[in-house]
């Protein structure tokens, strides 16, 4: 028999995996996206941050690695680099779960934007160090701006559509402890 708390936990993880799969498939569809267009946001990253700030237990380390490594492979990115950066960012957030719960939305937004910018800078630096061709700084910054704009949308989506909220006071986790 499965107890309801574990069931909710696994439902949350499965939900994240499914959403990620849908986002990757949508990105792969041959609908426009030709060269020279301004890049859109990396919705997968917005989604991860939104979940990470709310219920980090729904996105365990192995799930992050699995999803973002798959994204790297399928979306023609250098394999492993972006996944490594995402894992670091996710763990930075996980280590501050208690703090994140206290933050107002505006502060949470700022934290997400700052992390995304830091990831971008490191990503581009590694590109330079390993001598790989890369797009201009402008396009990368446009993508970052889009991501910052899209973040509240991702939060709204997870909050209202999937009823994913920060745990309230006194809520217990799968092991029966308080958050």
């Amino acid at each position, binding site marked *: 028999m499965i107890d309801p708390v574990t069931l909710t936990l696994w439902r949350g993880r499965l939900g994240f995996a499914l959403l990620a799969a849908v986002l990757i498939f949508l990105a792969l569809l041959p609908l426009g996206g030709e060269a020279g267009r301004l890049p859109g946001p990396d919705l997968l990253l917005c989604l991860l941050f939104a979940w990470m700030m709310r219920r980090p237990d729904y996105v365990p380390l192995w799930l992050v690695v699995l999803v973002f490594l798959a994204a790297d492979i399928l979306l023609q990115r*250098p394999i492993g680099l972006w996944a490594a950066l995402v894992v670091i960012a996710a763990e930075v957030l996980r280590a501050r779960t208690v703090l994140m719960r206290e933050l107002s939305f505006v502060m949470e937004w700022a934290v997400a934007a700052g992390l995304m910018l830091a990831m971008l800078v490191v990503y581009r630096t590694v590109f330079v160090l390993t001598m790989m061709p890369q797009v201009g700084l402008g396009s990368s910054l446009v993508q970052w701006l889009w991501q910052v704009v899209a973040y509240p949308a991702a939060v709204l989506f997870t909050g209202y559509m999937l009823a994913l909220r920060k745990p309230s006071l006194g809520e217990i986790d799968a092991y029966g402890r308080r958050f």
Partner: protein
Amino acid sequence: MARGPNNDIELTGPFRLIVVGATVGLLVITFLLWRIEGPRAEALRARITDHIAPALAWVSAPLTWVSDVTHDFQSYARLYEQNQQLREELRQMKAWKEAALQLEQKNARLLDLNKVRLDPKLTHLTGVVLADSGSPFRQSVLINAGARDGIRDGWAAMDGIGLVGRIAGVGEKTARVLLLTDLSSRVPVTLQPSGQKAILSGDNSALPPLDFVEDPSAVAAGDLVVSAGDGGIFPAGLVVGKVVLTEDKRLRVRLEADMARLEFLRVLRSHELDPIIGAGGLLAMPPIQGPPEPTAADLGPATAAKTEDKANP
């Protein structure tokens, strides 16, 4: 609440740090291996893409259909305008049709006279676009033909009109076409009236720039850009596009192929390359034994027929 045999270990403190560090380390090593052993990693990537391609086709078919319908629906708004335009074009086409029919008959007669056989090696096969790269900074598409259809790395891909890119990454059932606009695409081209050689190097913009033009002053906007046979992979003379001069004073190319709507791609089978064996093979031809055989005489009529056929309006 009972803990039970849960495989999900709660990690805390230094142990957690070690696990995270090890994961990140592994990912970074993966990245470095990819960077060093590019071809092998890309082959692996192609194989994985191969496995999800059928699923992709199922998902993409209805969605592309919806997108096409919306496009068509939007065009209803300009129905009258379009109708006028089409009538105008139809009038012009009728004149061309007459000319084409005449030329076709003439061409058939000439071919018959000369007993010309088209080069059987220059054939093509057509693939349907399944997916694009999925990332705004990579320009490539996936087509539904792969190694089992005999596709090889490096072959040229065209849409109906112009060069689109070349095959980079072949799976069993799918192949990836690296578009001319991708950051890592470099293609040797010839600029037509001036006959100059240049390299078309993609930079993720819609108008890829021309690099290494010998004499930029001899090139004018509107010049035709065709592929050069240099490197021996692309057949020479495939239409690429027209030269444009942008505001930043660079020579760029407006591609002839409709990059926004790639649906069917034509992959040209290229000639097999003779492998270069030994260091000397690159520099000098092997010494010819005895006098060369006379061959130029019997080629005369065929070339003459071709030029005449072009000169006639």
